[in-house]
């Protein structure tokens, strides 16, 4: 079974530029998550999709971050314009059923995209 795929793995941009990340979840997984992991901290959820609908985007800085999940499969996360404090690893995760499945609903993580903003 193929895991969660993310691209690119690394990205370096100047501040005020735009950047986009792509995620392909495990086949058949209904729920998709984007996390931001700043160096030295644990991941923080940015947005959660159930199929192609948003379940939770309460911690997404909507003035500069946007995300979509067309057709309930792949997802893209965009930052426009980027700031220095956006330097982090962006993790995508997916799970089979609705998140309220509890402990049975394991989240599988991708390798992440490491973003450096100069």
């Amino acid at each position: 079974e193929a895991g969660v795929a993310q691209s690119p793995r690394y990205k370096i941009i100047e501040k005020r530029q735009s950047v986009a990340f792509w995620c392909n979840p495990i086949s058949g997984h209904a729920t998709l998550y984007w996390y931001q992991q700043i160096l030295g901290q644990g991941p923080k959820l940015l947005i959660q999709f159930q199929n192609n609908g948003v379940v939770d985007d309460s911690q997404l800085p909507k003035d500069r971050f946007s995300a979509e999940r067309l057709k309930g499969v792949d997802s893209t996360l965009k930052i426009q314009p980027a700031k220095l404090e956006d330097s982090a690893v962006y993790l995508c995760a997916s799970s089979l059923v609705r998140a309220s499945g509890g402990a049975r609903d394991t989240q599988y993580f991708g390798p992440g995209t490491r973003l450096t903003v100069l």
Partner: protein
Amino acid sequence: AQTVTQSQPEMSVQEAETVTLSCTYDTSESDYYLFWYKQPPSRQMILVIRQEAYKQQNATENRFSVNFQKAAKSFSLKISDSQLGDAAMYFCAYKDEYGNKLVFGAGTILRVKS
């Protein structure tokens, strides 16, 4: 809001020895789920072990076991017979019964010495 605290930024263990990583959390909920995730250097995060709060029995997965103390809101991870491949960042995480987002601690770096 729920919080997860890992008070040990870094731990070291000798190969074949046992090490315990600490985690405490704060919640007003009675039903929830707790997890330990492992993140090796430059590799993706994987689930090590999970515990349902309504279960009194501590979860075990081969060399990994937890000590779940619900009243104390403590959830420590014990790794027995440590191996070089156990070296990684370990995150403790919480999820409420409604299945909302995972709340992670800051992580503990585990170094394994040969």
